[in-house]
């Protein structure tokens, strides 16, 4: 029976020859992940179950990223609990400050996720690893606590929606524009419980950075996971990151999809999500003058080296607008160091930006750039619901790094084409 990639990976990890959408199956987990907000509750569940040893200390990653460097006493207590648990259980993939970064940036970077893996994380953006051809999805802390004890999880096999990209990517258009466009088409509930499969000959020209951005926001359409078939781009990305090979899985011809959406790339414009929903998407050309108090470049969506490079390319020799704050947060220490070497950090600082330590920062209204009443920000992150980045009376627009950089210079939302 023909199956989609998602169905194949799930079947393989459930010890089954095949699965159909709707089946409730029990799946073995290759990597279980939690962060400083979700780990404490998960650890409590693990203790409550009475299990003494985690299922496999090499298959767990605990990443401090949301409220670090410790935002306040309570956050410090949460991280301390994670740290002590990892020490007690001898969990290898615990990252101390100085090594830690945004979870969905450092795990692919370190080769901890392979094509064909099942990754379950207590964070909604765990869907990011679908970019590598893995099945990955977010769950809550209770599910994660049970996984820590057993290494397994119950999942319902999702139906799939296929997005087919044809043509050539125009200048400046990147993964963020493509996923925002898809959200505009699907809506925040358009893919609830579905798997979003990104396909088409256009996909071959998408870098791993673009793919990570796209898979990252699959959850904003309500999807269970987003996924790209692993290909040559994947092979190159993985080549110097892991000794393990992974499984390069393709959907079968004849596999069934609930919906197919063709997306011509040639005419794709740069996209912006306007307040207060990630599916409230318009081409940047349709955004009237919107003055910006703050621009944020970073997050698990667009905090990678390519994103910083693209923004730096626009900012070189230019200044951030006088009344606009520009905050840049590299997604990992490795990205930060590389950006330093390439002169990217110098470019940002010269332009008037503030550079933060690798963490989630203001994305979820944590710290490092919260908005006051009446303020408006443009962010390369993934959600812009009311009070996402601060006061309920603040507004957040979402866009990619090129629009972010150009808008930081202009002090209002513009296309990079207007200045470069």
């Amino acid at each position, binding site marked *: 029976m023909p199956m989609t990639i998602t169905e194949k990976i799930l079947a393989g990890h*459930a*010890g*089954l020859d095949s*699965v159909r959408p*709707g*089946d*409730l*199956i*029990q799946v073995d987990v290759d990597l279980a992940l939690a962060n400083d*907000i*979700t780990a*404490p*509750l998960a650890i*409590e*569940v693990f203790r*409550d*179950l*009475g299990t003494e040893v985690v299922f496999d200390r090499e298959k767990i990653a605990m990443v401090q990223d*949301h*409220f670090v460097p410790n*935002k*306040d006493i*309570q*956050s410090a207590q*949460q991280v301390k609990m994670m740290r002590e648990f990892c020490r007690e259980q001898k969990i290898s993939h615990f990252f101390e400050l100085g090594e830690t970064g945004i979870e969905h940036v450092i795990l692919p970077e370190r080769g901890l996720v392979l094509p064909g893996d099942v990754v379950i994380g*207590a*964070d*909604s953006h*765990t869907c990011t690893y679908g970019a590598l051809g893995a099945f990955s999805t*977010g*769950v*809550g*802390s*209770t*599910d994660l*606590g*049970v996984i820590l004890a*057993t290494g*397994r999880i*119950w999942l*319902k096999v999702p139906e799939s929606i296929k997005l087919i990209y044809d043509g050539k990517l125009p200048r400046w258009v990147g993964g963020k524009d493509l996923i925002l466009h898809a959200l505009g088409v699907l809506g*925040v*509930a358009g893919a*609830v*419980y579905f798997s979003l499969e990104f396909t088409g000959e256009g996909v071959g020209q998408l870098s791993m950075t673009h793919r990570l951005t796209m898979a990252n926001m699959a*959850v904003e359409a*309500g999807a*269970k996971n987003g996924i790209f078939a692993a290909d040559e781009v994947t092979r190159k990305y993985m080549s110097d990151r892991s000794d393990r090979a992974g499984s390069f899985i393709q959907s079968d011809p004849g596999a069934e999809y609930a919906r197919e959406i063709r997306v011509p790339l040639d005419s794709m414009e740069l996209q912006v999500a306007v307040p207060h*929903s990630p599916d409230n998407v318009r081409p940047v050309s349709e955004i009237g003058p919107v003055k910006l108090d703050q621009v944020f470049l970073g997050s698990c969506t667009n905090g990678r080296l390519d994103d910083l490079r693209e923004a730096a390319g626009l900012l070189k020799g230019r200044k951030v607008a006088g009344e606009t704050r520009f905050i840049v947060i590299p997604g990992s220490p490795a990205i930060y160091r590389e950006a330093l070497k390439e002169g990217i950090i110098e470019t940002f600082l010269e332009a008037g930006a503030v550079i933060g330590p690798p963490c989630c920062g203001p994305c*979820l*209204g*944590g710290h490092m750039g919260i908005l006051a009443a009446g303020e408006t920000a443009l962010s390369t992150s993934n*959600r812009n*619901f*009311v*009070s*996402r980045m601060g006061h*309920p009376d603040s507004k957040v627009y979402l866009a990619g790094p090129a629009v972010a950089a150009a808008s930081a210079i202009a002090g209002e939302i513009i296309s990079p084409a207007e200045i470069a």
Partner: protein
Amino acid sequence: MKVQGKAWKVGDNVDTDVIIPARFLNVSDKDEMGRNCFADLRPDFVRKVHPGDILVAGENFGCGSSREHAPWALKRAGIGAVVAKSFARLFYRNAFNIGLPIVESHEASEQIEEGDRVSLDFAIGEIVNQSSGKRFTARAVPAFMRAVIEAGGLVEYVKKNPGAGFKEQRHTVD
């Protein structure tokens, strides 16, 4: 499991940042989460809600983050059950896992107003608007998941049924 209380109404796409804003996420004390439920949307909610009250929502309730803090905040604030037209996937899973009864019914969501007295019999999926006399049947929930709610959540279910659910590789939805 039966729940009865006053109805509280919210609209479509009520997301996790609304249910519990991020500034309250650095705690693991669930009662503390309850005290900050709907802190920005309806600051009077936590003072006025009574144990057993029922939240009635539109489409895609609980969209956004995977944070379990969202269903915990509702449960510890006193909400006995959530009736919605539809739920976001992560919230749906988390609610069952922590033993917060949730059911889907378009008609119930449309025909219950804020302040109505409502009862829910979770085992049979029956919702009654006692103020109007109307009855509704919620979308069926798989037996395995009903058992999780009846046990009080996933942890309690796993403790009562060691290995249960983890013996079989596949269940079909009944």
